């Protein structure tokens, strides 16, 4: 079974995003970029399934600027077998991404497509569900455990009240949550090896789908920020403040 893993190049999760002064967006010039952390978890899960003998090939795919190649090379260094870059300078929205991925899946025929549950830039949390809809496939979102057996996959999902398990027919779409696994670091020899793994170059026009933006961002602003309040000296002062607010046992 083949596993397809879409990955996105985003601002590194340790970098605090700064809103541009002109309100057009977040400043990404000279900012460290990395693989979306949830996508790293997705890649890791695919590689583990290959190591267990469940999967035979892991294919990473990214839609984005030329530098998204670096993100794909990271996937290859972690253990993916080959990669596809669909290169564009446009910001493609989740619906457009899902349409491109649906076309990639038509060509690849993967048994599982594992995505991160959301990208930490636009926080949409949509692409996996949309891809499942377009392909008419089942979806196991916010996965914390994945088990493939007998032509189906059991997915344990992180839901509001706790955990829920669903059984999906294959092929299926899975979106990875934080606790699915802890992604490995690529070793130096594997980083070197990744340089010679195949990386196919495509453009959106190769797939013949309409990916024009449906949303227009009018402005981006800093959130309302809180001011630091007062520090109290001891518990008695805190209790007095709480009582003044009407908070009592």
């Amino acid at each position: 079974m083949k596993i397809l893993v879409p990955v996105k190049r985003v601002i590194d999760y340790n970098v605090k995003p700064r809103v541009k002064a002109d309100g057009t967006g977040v400043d990404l010039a000279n900012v460290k970029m990395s693989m979306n952390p949830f996508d790293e978890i997705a890649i890791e899960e695919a590689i583990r399934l290959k190591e267990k003998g469940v999967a035979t090939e892991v294919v990473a795919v990214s839609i984005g600027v030329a530098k998204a190649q670096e993100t794909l090379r990271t996937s290859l260094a972690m253990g993916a077998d080959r990669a596809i870059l669909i290169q564009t300078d446009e910001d493609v929205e989740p619906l457009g991404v899902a349409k491109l991925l649906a076309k990639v899946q038509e060509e690849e025929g993967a048994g599982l497509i594992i995505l991160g549950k959301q990208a930490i830039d636009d926080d949409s949390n949509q692409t996996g569900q949309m891809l499942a809809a377009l392909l008419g496939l089942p979806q196991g979102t916010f996965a914390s455990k994945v088990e493939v057996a007998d032509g189906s996959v059991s997915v344990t999902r992180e839901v509001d009240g706790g955990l829920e398990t669903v059984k999906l027919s294959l092929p299926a779409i899975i979106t990875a949550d934080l606790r699915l696994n802890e992604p490995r670091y690529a070793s130096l020899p594997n980083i070197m090896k990744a340089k010679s793994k195949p990386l196919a170059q495509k453009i959106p026009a190769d797939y013949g789908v309409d990916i024009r933006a449906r949303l227009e961002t009018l402005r981006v602003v800093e959130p309302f920020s809180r001011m630091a309040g007062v520090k109290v000296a001891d518990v008695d002062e805190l209790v007095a403040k709480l009582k003044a607010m009407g908070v009592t046992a």
Partner: protein
Amino acid sequence: MKTLVWVEHEGGAVKDATLSAVTAASQLGEVHLLVAGEGVGGVADAATRIAGVGKVHVADDAAFGHALAENIAPLIVELMGHHDAFVAPATSNGKNIAPRVAALLDVMQLSEILSVESDGTFTRPIYAGNAIATVRSKDARKVVTVRGTAFEKAARDGGSGVVEAVASTGDKGLSSFVGAEIAKLERPELTSAKIIVSGGRALKDRPTFEEVIFPLAGKLGAAVGASRAAVDAGYVPNDYQVGQTGKIVAPEVYVAVGISGAIQHLAGMKDSKTIIAINKDEDAPIFQVADIGLVGDLFKIVPELTDKL
């Protein structure tokens, strides 16, 4: 604009997040509801009483019993033939279902809206709440999920909606529900609690977390939350997590105990009315957002506080 709100329910009751979604929908236009599930007559009745609702579409079928997106999305798509906007609460079920509906309608969804500016323009958080975008949808129909803490809850009474049964679109045979481990809470639910006491990594281990945090929460009638670090360290289950990837909360009072205040955590609680921080590190970022801070050893402070309240 005619809106359709998906009603999330549990144990025969409409969940709070749905009431916030109803308020958001009412700012777009007429509010109609969809109650889908198995044996949902009681929920449908309750839904008709929500203030301001019109029709309550009811689909009663085992196929809808566990809110499986594969079965519910086609039902919603049918109903969207005569609605202009689909609105769902941004809960784990809402987030699972809405994008599937959006793609089937060929609409680009707006996730976790914070406000309705006009029919097609909304605000929503991006970059873990570090920026707020004002976004206009060019699609004819709209699909949005609603962040519950950003909208008042519609009143549970006062409405006079009319039930209309809709035919089931059936079980698509793609997925099935196996089971759930839903924590039985003796305390209020995080997202609707008035007071929350949250603990961080400084709580050391599971027994210590329970020993220090639970009595204070119990005394205040508060829900218990945790930072991602505390959840990852296994002090409490994942559903306690407050933060960008956990639950977004905005209680009257949020007590952060031994939480340093990572961006990720602040994104989940910074809309709380009053934030109280207890931490031994006086430079911890949590103090930059706290209304009341107390620097010191939480293992001395919290028991003393619990005792003196």
